[in-house]
């Protein structure tokens, strides 16, 4: 590698990685600003502005050629632009929802927005990284920021306990992930994903390679909370501030899944993966849905539901085809919209002073009659999470189950469909409690009927946007093709399709 022009080349590449740089700089500005004017209400605007600019920039890159920047360390354009838009958009919605929520729970700290930006930088590095070093650094930048965000309400016993559990299991998973990286590096002699297959063919260090792959997959399964590595998820989601739960349950999962897809697609030989991924997908779908049925706390129920949705995405990955991978990407987009919306509604309905971790389902009785908009929005999110047409969730499920059937995994798709039907049990219970139970059935310590539950304009706007997106997303012509062509075209170019 000729490094004489390295400095110029890297300066030139900065423009391609503009959103990454912008978010990092904006995060630093917020930290410094916060030091001088503590918890300035202007800080979320800086974060939101940076995210919006990044979003527009990535939108303009959507149709451009895929390239790698910084000597093949990170991807830009095309595929990378799409996933970056999901990450930036999800973060932007979460920032807007968090401002009134954090004020309501009296933890309106300025550094929250800096941490969210840094976490998003990590996610973007993870999702678009093309070398194992980049994946590791991105994963850790993301995780370290999320540990702090989960434990934000540090006076609350449950919140700090959930943060500690999340930290221990997250760091544990990082160990496996890193060991996998080390062995893969040893077996292939490279850290670049696209060079791994040829490196492996050259060295022939079979045992080390497969051991490395196994450990790396365990690390990934932890991060996407696939069963049996899901134990941290319900605790972390229940104890985190609710809008931030929505944030971490969607964007961090999207980033980790994308990195997993890229590793499967570029770095590993195509055979042998279907069985492993299919078994994990079945376990994840079944366990996630069964455990969700038994929950009485809405946040915990949604946590198990998000595990189940990870299972649906794994079905697409198990198919192992270009269509399956692109279906998974499409599903991640839709899942992000509906989950951020669902947690956004729950966030508005909290009154226990313990960030909702002790609120039962009954405490939400009759919200639909008291605040019709919230009832309607929640109903849309729940129906979409079930996968009920014409909402986005339906098209997402078609996009992941279809390729699985084409790949000969009909039994897996059938289990997925049965799991979706079972999931209706707990999603519809939320709709029922919201709309058909009377507000008198709320626990005695709930705010009196007719008071409380203010819906700020900004939250209203975000929730309406999520609802509208879910209704129309399946009908936007070409959106599905956008994700397909990233993989199909590449497969054609590589001569494998």
């Amino acid at each position, binding site marked *: 590698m000729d490094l004489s022009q390295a400095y110029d080349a890297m300066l030139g590449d900065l423009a391609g990685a503009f959103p990454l740089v912008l978010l990092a700089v904006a995060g630093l500005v917020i930290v410094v600003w916060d030091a001088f004017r503590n918890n300035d209400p202007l800080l979320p605007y800086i974060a939101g502005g940076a995210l919006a600019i990044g979003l527009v920039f990535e939108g303009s890159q959507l149709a451009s050629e895929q390239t790698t920047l910084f000597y093949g360390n990170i991807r830009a354009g095309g595929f990378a632009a799409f996933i970056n838009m999901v990450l930036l958009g999800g973060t932007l919605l979460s920032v807007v929802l968090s401002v009134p929520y954090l004020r309501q729970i009296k933890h309106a700290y300025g550094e929250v927005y800096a941490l969210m930006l840094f976490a998003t930088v990590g996610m973007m590095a993870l999702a678009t990284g093309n070398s194992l070093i980049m994946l590791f650094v991105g994963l850790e930048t993301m995780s370290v920021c999320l540990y702090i965000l989960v434990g934000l309400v540090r006076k609350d016993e449950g919140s700090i306990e959930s943060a500690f559990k999340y930290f221990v299991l997250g760091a544990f998973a990082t160990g496996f992930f890193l060991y996998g*990286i080390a062995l893969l590096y040893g077996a292939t002699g490279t850290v670049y994903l696209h060079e791994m297959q040829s490196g492996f063919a050259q060295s022939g260090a079979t045992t080390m390679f497969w051991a490395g792959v196994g450990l790396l997959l365990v690390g990934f399964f932890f991060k996407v909370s696939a069963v049996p590595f899901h134990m941290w998820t319900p605790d972390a989601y229940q104890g985190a501030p609710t809008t931030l739960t929505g944030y971490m349950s969607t964007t961090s999962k999207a980033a980790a899944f994308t990195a997993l897809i890229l590793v499967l697609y570029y770095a590993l030989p195509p055979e042998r993966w279907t069985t492993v991924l299919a078994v994990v997908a079945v376990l994840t779908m079944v366990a996630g849905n069964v455990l969700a049925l038994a929950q009485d706390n809405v946040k915990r129920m949604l946590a198990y539901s998000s595990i189940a949705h990870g299972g649906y995405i794994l079905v697409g990955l198990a198919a192992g085809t270009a269509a399956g991978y692109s279906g998974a990407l499409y599903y991640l987009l839709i899942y992000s919209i509906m989950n951020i919306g669902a947690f956004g509604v729950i966030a508005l309905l909290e009154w226990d002073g313990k960030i909702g971790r002790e609120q039962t389902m009954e405490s939400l009785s009759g919200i639909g009659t008291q605040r019709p908009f919230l009832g309607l929005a929640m109903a849309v999110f729940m129906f979409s999470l079930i996968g009920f047409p014409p909402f986005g969730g339906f098209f997402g499920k078609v996009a992941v189950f279809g390729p699985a059937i084409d790949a000969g995994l009909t039994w897996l798709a059938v289990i997925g469909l049965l799991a979706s039907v079972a999931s209706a049990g707990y999603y519809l219970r939320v709709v029922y409690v919201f709309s058909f139970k009377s507000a008198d059935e709320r626990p005695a310590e709930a705010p009196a009927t007719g008071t409380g539950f203010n819906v700020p304009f900004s939250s209203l706007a975000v929730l309406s946007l999520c609802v509208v997106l879910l209704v129309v997303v399946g009908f936007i012509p070409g959106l599905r093709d956008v994700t397909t062509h990233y993989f199909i075209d590449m497969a054609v170019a590589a001569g494998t399709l």
Partner: protein
Amino acid sequence: MELTVNWYLALSAILFSIGVMGVLFRSNAIVILLSVELMLNAVNVSIIALAQMMADSTGHILVFFVLAVAAAEAAIGLSLVIALFRTKPTVDVNEFNLLKH
């Protein structure tokens, strides 16, 4: 007896296993943090040995990133333990069981 790369890999695997056991079976929060650090540094031994064997500098660079990340994780972990200690004066993780199925 010559020290081949396999000896380093074996040492690293043993250290990593000790770390895993520590995280799984110890109940003292500080010991758990130590075990996590041990896992990361066990991997560092592997990476350095492999990089040295292949005469490739990429592995050495990776180790520096790992060290920085381990430091950041230790800082977060210790501050979480302090915050835990303030809610309940113990570092025994079995005492923290508010969140259950």
